[in-house]
């Protein structure tokens, strides 16, 4: 017996999650095109882990498997984590990350819809704190790699750690442009010197990375057009980065990178459209979303520039996740016929 509508729009959690995955594809394709097979293998591996861990957690909690495995939320977590890790990350790194993402951040908090923190970012945070070395070994863009790995070689490296004969680790991996800037500045070089010393910098961001960021942007706009994510979060997030980075850049051109450089990184675009927009752990009111996005963008730059980690998106979003209940409570919009506060 129900008094709620007897008819439903054709919509479901699975549809929402599958559309998110579909909108990630442009970025994923650009990633594979620019950086090789590693990301494809890691996405597949993370997906397998996600489904297995989700099934295990559901079983332990005596939840029905079918509807919750089919909802696709575990796959989204898997993809977001895999896309945040170095594409040649060893298999166990992904495993540890996924255990924390699905097991701790999602199911220990009560499962789908109950998690305070973005599960993928919790997995990422655990890894970057616990395994900093592995987390900074990023694949070099194919155009710069002296020995681009084949599919088989990538597979062997991820699951066995072995490289083809005669190939050293330095030929395969490199630091990200963001990391390069951070380390260079620590060594008291100026921005121009750092840029001149490395071939990793592209026209706006990093070589290859620019394309991945562009792919995420395209998918993200599609996600907005499909009404899956609201415009406030990505717009405010990118604005937060741009304004903070812009202010620093204006204050000291020689030391702080241009705002466009900060925005054109894959992590910023992924964060803006796919991670900060996670509905469960994000703000729900229009003004709240602006605050959430601005705060996350601001913190991203602060952590990138002044923090001890190569990137700040994950911590920025986790910190803002903490503020969501407060933000939502403070920004409740007026209801119909309620005196609009001036």
């Amino acid at each position, binding site marked *: *017996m*129900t*008094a*709620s*509508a*007897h*008819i*439903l*729009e054709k*919509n*479901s*959690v699975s*549809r*929402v999650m599958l559309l998110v995955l579909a909108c990630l594809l442009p970025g994923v394709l650009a990633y594979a095109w620019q950086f090789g097979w590693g990301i494809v293998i890691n996405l597949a591996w993370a997906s397998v882990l996600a489904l297995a861990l989700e099934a295990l957690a559901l079983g332990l909690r005596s939840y029905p498997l079918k*509807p*919750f495995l089919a*909802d696709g*939320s575990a796959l989204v977590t898997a993809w977001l984590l895999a896309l945040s890790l170095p594409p040649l990350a060893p298999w166990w790194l992904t495993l540890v990350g996924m255990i924390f993402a699905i097991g701790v951040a999602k199911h220990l908090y009560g*499962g*789908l*819809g*109950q998690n305070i923190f973005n599960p993928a970012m919790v997995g990422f945070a655990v890894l970057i704190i616990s395994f900093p070395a592995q987390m900074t070994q990023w694949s070099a863009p194919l155009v710069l790699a002296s020995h681009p790995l084949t599919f088989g070689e990538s597979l062997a490296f991820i699951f066995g750690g072995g490289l083809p004969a005669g190939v050293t680790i330095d030929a395969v991996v490199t630091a990200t442009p963001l990391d390069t800037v951070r380390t260079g500045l620590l060594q008291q070089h100026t921005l121009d010197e750092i840029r001149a010393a490395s071939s990793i910098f592209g026209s706006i961001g990093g070589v290859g990375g620019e394309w991945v960021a562009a792919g995420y942007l395209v998918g993200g706009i599609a996600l907005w057009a499909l*009404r*899956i994510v*609201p415009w406030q979060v990505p717009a405010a997030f990118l604005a937060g980065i741009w304004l903070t980075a812009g202010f620093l850049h204006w204050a000291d051109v020689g030391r702080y990178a241009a705002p466009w450089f900060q925005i054109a990184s894959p992590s910023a675009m992924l964060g803006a459209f796919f991670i900060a927009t996670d*509905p*469960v752990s*994000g703000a*729900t*009111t229009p003004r709240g979303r602006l605050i959430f996005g601005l705060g996350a963008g601001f913190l991203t730059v602060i952590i990138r520039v002044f923090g001890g980690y190569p990137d700040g998106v994950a911590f920025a979003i986790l910190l803002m996740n903490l503020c969501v209940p407060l933000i*939502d409570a403070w920004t*409740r*919009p*007026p*209801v*119909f*016929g*309620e*005196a609009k506060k001036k």
Partner: protein
Amino acid sequence: MELHRFPGGIHPEEHKKESSSRPIHAAFVPKKLVVPMRQHIGQPAKPIVRVGDHVLKGQMIAEADGYVSVALHAPSSGIVTEIGLASVPHPSGLPDLCITIATDGRDEWCERTPVDWRNTDPAALRGHVRDFGIAGLGGAVFPTSIKLDPAGGPAIHTLILNGGECEPWITCDDRLMRERAEDILEGARIMQHLIGAEKLIAGIEDNKPEAIAAMRTAAQKIGVAIKVIAMPTIYPGGGGKQITKTLTGLDTPSGGRTTDVGVQVFNVGTSYALSRALNHGEPLVSRIVTVTGHVLRPQNYEVLIGTPMSELLLHAGEREGLTGIIMGGPMMGFDVPAMDVPVVKASNCVLAKSKELFPPRPPEMPCIRCTQCVPVCPAELQPQQLYWFARAKDLGRAQEYHLFDCIECGCCSYVCPSHIPLVDYYRFAKSEIWAREKEKRLADTARERHEFRLFRLEREKKEKAERLAAKAATKKAEAPVLSKEEQDAKKKLIQEALARAQARKATVTPKNTDNLPPEKQAEIAEIEARRAKIREIANQPVEPEKP
């Protein structure tokens, strides 16, 4: 005229064509009519007939009980066979007091006396409206006489005839406007007379062009100054606050009514019923009902109140695979508890369900806070937050988030990707709040009574003490001092009385069981033992029966 857009809303499939193409089918008289006493908001009507009475069509069978109530009438002629609990169309599924009439098939009217409403005192006229049983036929069934009473409230400048009919499938107002527009407008004339509104507007969604044309033609023909406006088709555009916004641009204050901004809204069916009552002397004994969905011939019927819905389905052609009946539309209607529940004044639609047309709701998934419910909410609420508060029984927060502004239109549950029956949660929270408020009221009353009792006891004690003190004072002043002999004589008297009493006690008063034969005595002892046993059992805590 400039139209305004109310916030929120959805566009579900309309399904109007199925039933709107056929004309209204005249009322048929079923063998049995079951008339519930509670068909309107407020106090249920009080039966004034007895079992065995012969009643004529239109004869009052139950009178209005108080101000917020309306009368009820025999929908057809026949004999009252039962006054008692029967199954009624209510989401609770609980039976309610009904008068059952076995019809005689003659459908014989009682004497119909029209009211000269132009020359009747307004208060008396509203009394007539109540005694003719008129209540809002748009679905809320609020007593119309109260809405027609401008006293005390803000002045009404605009009267809106609501022909929105925004719910899918329902076409009863559409057909009524197409076929009986003149009576609708005559009713509006009476309303305007009583309320004194300057402006009269009829709002009709633009998916009913024939109805719009018919209303305009009729207005011209009988000379009623009314603007007939085609509104965009958006659900829930026919809601009172929504149609007010669309037609006047006025925002009804949160927690308030449209009358707060000087607008009163009536459903076209109500207006029609009002005209039939006052101009023709016909009380509300029938209404137009859309019978549609999984039936062979979906169409509108003029149905006698009390007609079992199952009989309506037979008339419209029952089909295999019927899975239930929704009373009302698919958005705000509810599943009736039984197929044979009667049609009541609120029954605008009898919607036959099948698995194909209305598949069961998929299992509920957790809320992912996607907020797809927010932009569709016409009250601009935060449905996802209200859902959390309702689940957590955080009723204070729910009220802070304006739970009571929810009009239960169902837009949120329509779009929810987790298929959560959100409106059920809001209804639950609302009823919980009402229950607690009632409890609190009762507790307050009890506490006040208790406090007053303590106060009274204290006061009485004080008064008594004062009285005694005063008495003692006067006694002391007046009492003669007894001499030694007198005191001794008194003591002696007391002693003697005590001795007499003790002597009486010594001779035991015989019991009436003493002289019985031993068998009887044994029997009595056994009965006493059994009673003791039963008492013992009765005092034991009840244990749930094991299956």
